[in-house]
């Protein structure tokens, strides 16, 4: 079995573990909270303006984190946007180089350089965010309690293994100036060129990156990283007046209910 096949065999298992974590740590809890506060909001009662505002302020701009300070906000923005854009470019890369192969996205063409630029830029943004998080987390600051250290280290390994694998791949190829669009991948590749070719070590790093990235998805559901799903959902739900009112009503009804054994 090739390493690529092994990777594809493991992916459904890792995603299965992610879903198990999401069910156990998010969905059943959501169900209980909704059960207590009433019901899902019927579609016609959704306040679209409030939803849009909550999404913009809480998810896109993360204003709540801004209240904790400029640095925590910058760090969180770098990590969340770096991760999101990187994930999007990963999907685009698979789509245009494998599933809907277009000539523009062949190796060295403009589309391919665009994908490499996006992947590397977002990877670098993520890397800077993670380094700030780990350095600030190591210092005895108030901010340290908000840092998910194991999660940040795990993600750092994913990012670093990706950059090293890509650099080894570039170092194995003849020099090509247009590859400068690959930014850090290109710079690292040029630095590693004197020791090229990398054959076994390139396969090792590529596989390590693929497995770590997939395992990280599984890890999301079982760690504090679940806030990637939970926090935006929570912010969006509670932006809805109907849901907030239902919650207050349920709490008030509970308080007004006579306790057993008391007159």
């Amino acid at each position, binding site marked *: 079995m090739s390493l690529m096949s092994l990777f594809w065999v493991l992916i459904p*298992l890792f995603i*299965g573990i992610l879903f198990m974590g999401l*069910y156990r740590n998010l969905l*059943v*809890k959501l169900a209980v909270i*909704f059960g207590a506060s009433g019901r899902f909001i019927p579609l016609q009662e959704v306040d679209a303006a409030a939803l849009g505002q909550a999404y913009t302020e809480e998810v896109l701009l993360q204003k709540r984190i801004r209240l904790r300070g400029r640095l925590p906000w910058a760090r969180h923005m770098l990590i969340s946007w770096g991760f999101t854009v990187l994930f999007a470019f990963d999907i685009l890369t698979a789509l245009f180089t494998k599933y809907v192969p277009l000539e523009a996205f062949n190796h060295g063409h403009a589309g391919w350089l665009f994908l490499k630029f996006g992947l590397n830029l977002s990877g670098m943004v993520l890397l800077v965010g993670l380094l700030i998080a780990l350095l600030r987390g190591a210092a005895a600051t108030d901010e340290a309690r908000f840092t998910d250290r194991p999660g940040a280290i795990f993600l750092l390994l994913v990012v670093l293994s990706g950059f090293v694998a890509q650099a080894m791949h570039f170092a194995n190829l003849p020099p090509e100036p247009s590859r400068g669009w690959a930014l850090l991948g290109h710079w690292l590749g040029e630095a590693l060129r004197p020791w090229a070719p990398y054959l076994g070590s390139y396969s090792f790093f590529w596989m390590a990156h693929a497995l770590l990235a997939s395992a990280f998805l599984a890890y999301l559901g079982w760690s504090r990283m679940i806030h990637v799903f*939970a926090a935006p959902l929570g912010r969006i739900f509670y932006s809805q007046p109907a849901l907030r009112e239902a919650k207050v009503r349920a709490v008030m009804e509970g308080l007004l209910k006579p306790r057993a054994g008391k007159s």
Partner: protein
Amino acid sequence: MPPALRRFTWWSFFVTEALLVAAASAYVGLGTRDFWLVVTAAVAASVAYVIAVRRTPVPKLGEAASAPQRWYWF
């Protein structure tokens, strides 16, 4: 659990697994030995998911409301 959330629990999982098998087939080929290994992995993940869903205890309201707040700022 509200019916809409229950439906989401099942549909989101099985559709994702089916998409992964379809995506994998572009790399390992349809009907090859590796393809059947991917299918086996997806089936194993599905069985594990069904068992996990069936056996997950429903938390009390206090646990459900406080744990996400402590952990996930929900």
